[in-house]
């Protein structure tokens, strides 16, 4: 065992005393599943990250990377943890080339700042800029590209999440129906491999088959293959018109009907989100006085040319009436942005409110969404587990949050049991179930990544090749990788 003072001194030489935090407040905040690191490091650039990893290799120190901390609940507790490497100082936008429709940013750049930077001079943006909240000495990027384009991804925690974290988790939201996922928009990456070497792949061209597509391998690798430091994405022009249609239904089958009808047409909505009343109530949207307190809500996002939005709105409203919609509301432009911002912020709000929050993401063949939703909703209701449930219809994704507090009355055991049943049901539908939030103490009873996938042996080969000493986020990922 090497003297920890020597280690700290070595790290101080790399990033400077000020940026090696060992005080209890910071290490406690950056603890991963209650495992406290020896130090939290704040490197200022890729080069420093490289030196940190080389040092960690020599000293056999285990590292978990961190951005703003919005995804730290994801994954198994680490097998070991010595250092947390925090990317928040790596917050530079390295190349904003809106004429080429690409942007290159460092890992610590926040998603909201990317969107703010891409806004027009009069602040037309993909996020509701004036509603964004900052903490402490943060501020929102005020430099405008005047381009009116945007990065077409829709991650949870869009106010807080960093680009490095979004890519590491390949996170998406309801509007992936139209725009797909970060893996579909990333063009290039520079990262520090576990060996400490800086590796680059891809670039800023929208097509590239020069070498392996390492950008895709790194996307969604949950910090187990290295630390992503710089990324290039392709951009899209901001939609001319944005509108959300909200419909409330008394029964689940009526809500499903609407979603199914939409998918029978060639209309191209950005999202079709079906949720229970609890989910809608937690969004705290005021524009809808006639929505019942139980039942279901369908939210349809429309983001394209004005005439196409008009046509879709007209046709979908008609379908909703035929399906027996009870309430009907329309949110345009700014309120549309506010609505989807609320959807994106729901997880952290619930996590703050419910100390025992368990959130699961189910994936399955898209045609089975009604059966999965119905099964999950019924099972949870029968077990009297209060829950938020919503499905990204057309994407094969359903998310469930169990609104529980720790130290409750045995409902945690029930929750664990129900999660097992839901996992089995998703597996039967060709998918899996990933737990995105759970109290650390409960994690050992849950299968955080569902069942190991059929290609697990391949994943293991990759991990062992890239990180032979197992210093990057050890044990956090699928099957303990």
């Amino acid at each position, binding site marked *: 065992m090497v003297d920890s003072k020597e280690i700290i001194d070595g790290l101080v030489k790399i990033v400077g005393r000020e940026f090696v935090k060992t005080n209890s407040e910071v290490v406690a905040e950056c603890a991963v599943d209650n495992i406290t690191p020896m130090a939290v490091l704040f490197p200022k650039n890729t080069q420093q990250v490289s030196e940190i990893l080389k040092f960690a290799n020599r000293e056999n120190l285990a590292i978990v990377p961190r951005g703003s901390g919005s995804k730290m609940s994801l994954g198994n507790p680490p097998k070991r943890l010595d250092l947390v490497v925090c990317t928040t100082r790596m917050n530079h936008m390295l190349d904003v080339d*809106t004429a*080429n429709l690409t942007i290159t940013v460092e890992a610590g750049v926040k998603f909201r700042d990317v969107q703010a930077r891409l806004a027009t001079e009069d602040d037309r943006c993909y996020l509701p800029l004036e509603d964004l909240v900052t903490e402490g000495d943060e501020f929102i990027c005020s430099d405008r590209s005047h381009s009116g384009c945007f990065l077409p991804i829709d991650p949870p925690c869009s106010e807080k999440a960093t680009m490095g974290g979004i890519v590491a988790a*390949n996170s998406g939201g309801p509007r992936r129906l139209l725009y797909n996922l970060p893996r*579909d928009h990333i063009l290039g990456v520079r990262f520090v491999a576990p060996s400490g070497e800086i590796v680059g792949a891809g670039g800023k061209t929208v097509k590239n*088959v*020069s070498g392996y597509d390492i950008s895709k391998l790194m*996307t969604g690798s949950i910090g187990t293959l290295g630390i992503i430091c710089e990324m290039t994405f392709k951009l899209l022009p901001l939609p001319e018109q944005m509108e959300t249609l909200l419909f409330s239904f008394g029964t689940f089958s009526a809500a499903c009907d609407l979603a199914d009808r939409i998918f029978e047409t060639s209309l191209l909505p950005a999202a079709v989100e079906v949720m229970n009343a609890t989910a809608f109530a937690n969004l705290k949207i005021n524009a809808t006085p006639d929505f019942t307190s139980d039942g279901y809500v369908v939210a349809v996002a429309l983001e394209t040319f004005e005439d196409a939005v008009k046509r879709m709105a007209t046709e979908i409203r008609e379908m909703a009436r035929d399906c027996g919609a009870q309430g009907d509301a329309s949110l345009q432009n700014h309120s549309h942005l506010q609505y989807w911002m609320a959807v994106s912020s729901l997880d952290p709000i619930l996590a703050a409110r419910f100390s025992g929050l368990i959130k699961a993401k189910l994936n399955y063949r898209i045609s089975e969404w009604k059966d999965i939703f119905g099964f999950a909703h019924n099972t949870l209701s029968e077990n009297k587990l209060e829950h938020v449930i919503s499905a990204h219809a057309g994407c094969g994704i359903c998310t469930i949050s169990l609104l529980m507090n720790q130290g409750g009355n045995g409902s945690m055991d029930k929750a664990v049991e129900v999660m097992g049943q839901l996992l089995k049901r998703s597996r039967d539908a*060709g998918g899996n179930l990933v737990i995105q939030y759970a109290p650390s103490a409960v994690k050992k009873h849950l299968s955080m990544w*569902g069942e190991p996938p059929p290609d697990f042996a391949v994943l293991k080969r990759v991990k062992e*090749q890239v990180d032979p000493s197992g210093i990057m986020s050890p044990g956090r990922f699928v099957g303990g990788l």
Partner: protein
Amino acid sequence: MDKQELIERLKEIVGPENVLTSAMDLALYSYDASLDKATPEVVVLPNSSEEVSKVMALAYKEKIPILGRGSATNLTGGTIPVKGGIVVHFSRMNRILEIDIPNRTATVEPGVITLDLQTEVLKKGFAYQPDPASQKVSTIGGNIAENAGGPHCLKYGVTSNHIMGLELVLNDGTVVWTGGKSRDNPGYDIAGLFVGCEGTLGLVTKAILKLERAPEAVKTMLAIYDTIEDGANTVSAIIAEGIIPATLEMMDNPIMRAVEASVKAGYSLDAAAVLIIELDGMPEGMEENANKIMEICRQNNVREVKLAKDETERTVLWAGRKGAFGAVGQLYPSFLCCDGTVPRTKLPQVLSQVLEVGKKYDLTIGNVFHAGDGNLHPLIMFDERIPDQKAKVLKASSEILKLCADAGGTISGEHGVGLEKLKETSFIFCDNDLEFARGIKKAFDPDDIINPGKLIPEPVCTP
């Protein structure tokens, strides 16, 4: 194991009639659409994943090089058996196994011809979007290996954006599925890594592809220019204006001449360049966008811009573009297509530099390319039989790729590195990048038997 024994063992696996060994057969498998040649020891035509698995296991045990091959339309030597060994030709594994409309997927074997699949799904109102110009003959397996692009990839993304799952045969013969009909399966994006790996990590024996609704409406425009610069400036201006058409293709005069000689697409032979611009999707808003585009064309000194009146006119316009490589092939005994790609703002600059290279080496260069993607395809036309021509062409091609790399671009947008651009990888990668790639190769193929000698250059030995 001697060659005769190998052949006997392969015959046991796939049946005697599906093992090719005659000198003529082997010669037919010694080339693709690139300039290199090398002869395999034996060619097998398996009929199932199980057979492929057994062939692979045999190659693994005996450490024999092995590579997969579809129609070999690839342009950089990806299917040239440089180390001999076994060529696995997927022509018999050409079944569309399932078109699953409720789940928006098609499951196919690797030997399915791209256009055949597209025709089948279109009958149900759906599209498989990646449309390489060779789609009439290219196979899905080949498209996956090379991460094929095509005109419509500007709007819809390349092959890797449309692959949901793959059945793989690994180096030791193990058969595994990665991904599937559901999205977000936890784990590394192995399917994403396999697409574009140029067949160096394993063999693909089934693929689940993503289907999308076929667009309701299409509008196709032809813009004719007196100078190439005006055409290139138009492309940059359309993208900078924030319009992403479904396609934005460019052809210059030498290509149009070649095309007119074989296809008769009705291009003006005295023009310097044409753009084929297509919009698709919902009809609402399309008219307005078409007008905006035509206005941009006019601002950039277009001689004439016209809308295709009907499907017949549209088909003719596209026949010219898609037949371009073939048309050049009819006029010149050999051609080399450089696949350099640049940020779209750099197109005008790089295009004129490419023409300078042509002048410098006294070579005819035609340009037919995916302009909206910044994906150049300078075609260097020549006659391989003339001494020293090939060496000169390779030098010019390398210089063009250097221009692209220096402009912030890359050496291949959709054709791959293969054999042809191994040296040029140094334009864009440093040793660390290549070493990491070698590690990935090693994770899948530690004995270096799967399509060896491609994609990554051998490390430079320091004494």
